[in-house]
């Protein structure tokens, strides 16, 4: 049984549909890189899995249970965590309070304050700082740490690299590799195809809300991906 299974999922905002019949499966512990241009539906797909934008049609199954229509807080309690686009740290909380919020669902597992500070040593001296007083990279560490504190079985990461220097991004992906090694499954959204292909065991390309191409790391044909990414006329 796959960890996560999407079957013909449609989702959108009001009258605007952003996803059209998206199906995918993810096995426990694997990393899926989700690539696609701006507006391809990558963030909506993550939001649909996490329950923030409930699917209007189709099914989302996680560990065999049907999540479709379940409120976001109940999905989180089952072990799905999302690092949202733009980080969205709690502005009136300190770094440590932000991390503690992640543990609110009370799931047991290897992640706690100590293991987060081991993963991101930069945060230790800033634990009592207001979360929004940190640099962008450090804020992203807090956002990842906060999601990990829930001890998720599936971690969804939306555009970790947005606005960050390449050296900082490399550090974040090195940390994600450690997370993956603990057996956590990941879906990583990136606009940077190179970064995405390097991080994922499998990849999947979305365009205009539909899956246009998918493969495993070995089968990444850059030309085919570029055509899928931009549409055939651009190739």
């Amino acid at each position, binding site marked *: 049984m796959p960890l996560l299974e999407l079957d013909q999922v449609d989702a959108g905002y009001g009258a605007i549909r952003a996803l059209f019949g998206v199906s995918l499966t993810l096995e426990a512990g694997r990393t899926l890189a989700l690539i696609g241009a701006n507006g391809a539906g990558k963030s909506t797909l993550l939001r649909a899995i996490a329950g*923030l934008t409930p699917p209007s049609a189709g099914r989302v199954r996680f560990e065999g249970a049907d999540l479709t229509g379940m409120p*976001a807080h109940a999905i989180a309690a089952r072990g799905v965590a999302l690092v949202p686009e733009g980080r969205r740290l*709690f*502005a009136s909380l300190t770094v440590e309070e*932000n991390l503690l*919020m992640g543990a609110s669902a009370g799931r047991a597992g290897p992640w706690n304050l100590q293991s987060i500070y081991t993963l991101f040593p930069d945060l230790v001296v800033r634990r009592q700082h207001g979360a929004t007083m940190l640099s962008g990279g450090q804020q992203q560490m807090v956002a990842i740490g906060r999601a990990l504190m829930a001890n998720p079985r599936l971690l969804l990461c939306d555009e970790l690299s947005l606005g960050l220097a390449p050296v900082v991004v490399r550090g974040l992906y090195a940390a994600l590799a450690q997370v993956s090694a603990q057996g956590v499954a990941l879906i990583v959204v990136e606009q940077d195809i190179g970064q995405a292909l390097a991080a994922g065991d499998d990849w999947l390309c979305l365009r205009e809300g539909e899956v246009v191409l998918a493969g495993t790391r070995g089968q990444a044909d850059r030309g085919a991906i570029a055509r899928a990414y931009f549409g055939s006329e651009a190739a």
Partner: protein
Amino acid sequence: MNAVADTLVQGLLLGGHFALSGLGLALAFGIMRIVNIAHGDLLVVAAYLGVALVRLTPLSPLAAVLVIVPAMAALGWLLQRTLFNRLVGQGDLAPMLVTFGLSIIVHNALQELFSADFQTLDAGAARTASVEVARMHLGLLPLATLALAALVYAGVHALMRHTRFGRIVRATVDDPEVAALMGIDARRVYAAGMALALGIAGLAGWLYGIKSSFNPLTGGNELLFAFEAVIIGGLGSIWGSFAGGLVLGIAHVAGTQVDAGWGAFAGHVAFFGFLFLRPGGLLARGGSGHG
């Protein structure tokens, strides 16, 4: 000189009442973004609950508080779960309209149950007892009210700053969607917030019932004073409401020195003065400050 000191001290004592009755209003706005137009009427409900308890049970007016506070907290939880949670994300106007409607329902229900006659929670000697300090007569009831107000404010501050519950409330106020990603159900947080707000309103309403005579319609004035205290202090700042209540109390007492009927008028003048000179409030800060 002595008259000035007396005005200040009596003003602070009266201000304790305004501060305490404003806190529930400030919390409902700070946590749920609800401007609770029925807040004053709910203070009156707490006072009538005291009247009913004294009539129907062996409880004394002073002991009635032990039932009033939990009962009002339960009412707050129930109102939020059944009514106010439907208003989340519907803008600022919807909660005002709904609580305005609730206020009218409360007026009529209280008139039906208790008639329009004025009543009081007769605490006997405790109501008028006083102590003499530095040749000033200080009422025990106002002293107790101010002390309770300070205690409750300090308690709420500690709750919001230093507990898991407070952390969850602050995070939910910041971003309810991301809080949901952490497994937090905002509707439950709001229900707990309204229980806290009305539990404190229960305490304030009980003290109000002992201090003043009331009827089903006197809640309007209480809302006005509570509202002025919160606005003078600055929306979103808990300690601001405390300071605002004290300022309003001093204005009331100073007005009464000029003419016995000018207390509330002087309070309104002070309110407009602050609105004009310091529209953000006494303790206004950038961002959402809970504490």
